[in-house]
């Protein structure tokens, strides 16, 4: 019997949930939305995803090799960033631009700030913002959807005609005073970025994350609810259910609320903070959509939200057990 056993301070037990498992859960939860994107926009969507994921993982790998740091690409976070960035791009995006956006997301937004856990904004959204600023016209170039569902039914539908003419996203159409089909929006038979179009597919993935306890519904629900309330008050259509649902399903709100606002690193850790964060995002998205020039606004709302996370956390520190009556010392 050897007399030297492992010695460490307690606890000696660990749960099986690891960073890697969480990241792969998120990636898995993104599969339905991605699969629908490929179905909706064709194989080029898959190519864009592969380019983004490849570029993100490669950037992290090369950076860590050059800086002589531990290589962390197996934690899965670069994979998730790549997927999310691809989901935020139109299918027609030139591949070299997608590549550049991925490099920016990982290198500038994440790695130079210290890598995983240290980035102050969501890398995928940071990458997207970079692309919007640099290549705005490409980012807003939505080619007509290759209709599938309506083709099966046979013959052209008004939907097709509209698309062929305007190449517009539903929210752009709404802004122009046109009407949209809510069921199509829910299923995803619409134009938009690769991963945002199908609310249904996003909800399936989100449900998986909730069941696996990877995310809580606190941020997504407060986000969506406060956004709806804002739109009722200031959207100009009052309680128009069709209008509200179109706004909830469209413009990446679903993808943003469930997959990007819930990013651990860039959202508040405190319970109260998460509620404030959700409301902030909802109101900001509403402001951008109602009063802003663009019709979406989700990604900038989340980026702005990311920036005030430290502030939110500071004012929402929980009171320790048995210390509820005492004020926090400065």
């Amino acid at each position: 019997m050897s007399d030297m056993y492992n010695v460490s301070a307690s606890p000696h037990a660990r749960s099986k949930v690891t960073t890697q498992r969480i990241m792969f859960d998120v990636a898995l939860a993104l599969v339905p939305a991605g699969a629908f994107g490929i179905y909706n926009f064709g194989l080029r969507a898959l190519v864009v995803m592969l380019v983004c994921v490849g570029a993100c993982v490669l950037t992290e790998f090369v950076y860590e090799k050059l800086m002589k740091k531990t290589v962390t690409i197996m934690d899965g976070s670069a994979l998730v960033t790549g997927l999310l960035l691809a989901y935020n791009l139109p299918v027609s995006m030139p591949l070299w631009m997608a590549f550049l956006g991925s490099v920016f997301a990982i290198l500038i937004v994440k790695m130079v700030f210290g890598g995983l856990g240290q980035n102050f904004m969501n890398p995928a959204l940071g990458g997207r913002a970079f692309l919007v600023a640099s290549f705005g016209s490409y980012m807003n170039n939505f080619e007509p959807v290759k209709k599938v569902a309506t083709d099966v039914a046979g013959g052209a539908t008004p939907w097709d005609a509209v698309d062929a003419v305007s190449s517009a996203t539903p929210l752009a159409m709404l802004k122009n005073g046109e009407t949209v089909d809510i069921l199509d929006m829910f299923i995803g038979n619409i134009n938009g970025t690769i991963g945002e179009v199908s609310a249904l597919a996003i909800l399936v993935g989100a449900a998986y994350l909730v069941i696996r306890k990877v995310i809580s519904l606190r941020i997504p629900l407060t986000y969506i609810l406060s956004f709806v309330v804002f739109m009722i008050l200031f959207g100009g259509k009052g309680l128009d259910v069709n209008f509200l649902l179109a706004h909830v399903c469209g413009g990446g709100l679903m993808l943003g609320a469930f997959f990007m606002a819930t990013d651990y690193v860039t959202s508040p850790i405190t319970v109260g903070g998460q509620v404030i964060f959700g409301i902030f995002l909802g109101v900001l998205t509403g402001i951008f959509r109602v009063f802003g020039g663009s019709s979406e606004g989700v990604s900038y709302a989340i980026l702005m939200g990311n920036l005030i996370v430290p502030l939110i956390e500071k004012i929402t520190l929980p009171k320790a057990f048995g210390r509820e009556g005492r004020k926090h010392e400065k």
Partner: protein
Amino acid sequence: MGSATFKGGIHPYDGKELSMDRPIRTLLPKDEVVFLMSQHIGAPATPTVAVNDKVLVGQIIGAATGFISANVVSSVSGTVKAIEPRQAVNGDKVNAIIVTNDHEYTTVEDFGKKRDYTRLSKEQIRNIIKDAGIVGMGGAGFPTHVKMTPKDDDKIEYVIVNGAECEPYLTSDYRMMMEEPERIVNGLKIILSLFTRAKGVIAIEDNKPEAIEKLSKMVRNNPSIEVCPLKTKYPQGGERSLIYAVTGRKVNSSMLPADVGCVVSNIDTTISIGMAVSESTPLIRRIVTVTGDAIAEPCNYNVRIGMSYREVLEAAGGLTGPVEKIISGGPMMGMALFSLDVPVAKTSSALLCLKEDEATKPESACIRCGRCATVCPGHIIPQKAADAAMHDDLEGFIKYDGLECCECGCCTYVCPAGRNLTQALKQMRKKALASRKK
């Protein structure tokens, strides 16, 4: 009625099935028995015997030094071989009395004599508890006579017997509840005789329905005692979580249970009080669960204090193969041993032998998932307090309420990045408390 509980906590693998149905077997030590002078919180006891002295079972061989200290009583008869520092479970060298066991187990006079506690005064009962060297046997080792002497006896409204046994793998308390429930009730009645206005509560996690049923039946006709089922969740048996679950009252790090009218006593401690008062038997034994996936025959043992862990392990059939970690106590709060040549102390609840050491997982970056904050029974954000601790930032540590950490280990357990949060908090708390005293 739903089971009482607290906010936070975790559900680790509990491993209790290994040993929960194994009745307690009595073990006697071999030739050398080691009595550490410090098996409790407070000043170490002072040896009252010299080398070559004869000692008897039940004889005080180490006397409490000051109020917060405890006697040490010999569990065997024999001759004092040496008085020298020996290794304790935490790795410290502690002054110890080494006795050569004569295997006669000759006792002191009146040992085991029956006594009726109702004829004793409060002072007499407290003195018996003090003389018997009883300390909190759940792990902390706080001298029981101190705990039983609050400022005002009449302010105590609850005497809670802690039968939660939330620590994974441990089944010693459960076995006692199943095998000697009358001793638990007797011990509780004695404590209640000190606090005449208090209600007795035996709190048991609801993963032990048979124990709940057994004790409920026993106290059915006693209006001053009730059994309170607790939700099964770690650290349900932590003193603060337990008091909150049973009474809804909150104790923080700078308070004592008595401040909210509570006295909490562990199962084995309660039994020891009963044995000391009613059976004139001081604290010379404790129940130890020997378990883990590397143990041939997991079991619960009635072990004489001072017996070496190596002998206890041999009695359990030894190890089945290579073992990575040996722990005195449970996996959440127990102490890892690097050697088995350590004596069983008053606070040694288990010997846990694991083939695989889960705690050697490498640490990676915090992803701010917030799991640590969700499970923390102290409602702090361990990530922030531990971060301050890792940067030796005392101010930040106090601001983030690091002092409220009860060291239960939940945050480290759930951390997906494998960060040693509890360990960092523990270390900084020691430092912070030391600087507070200055």
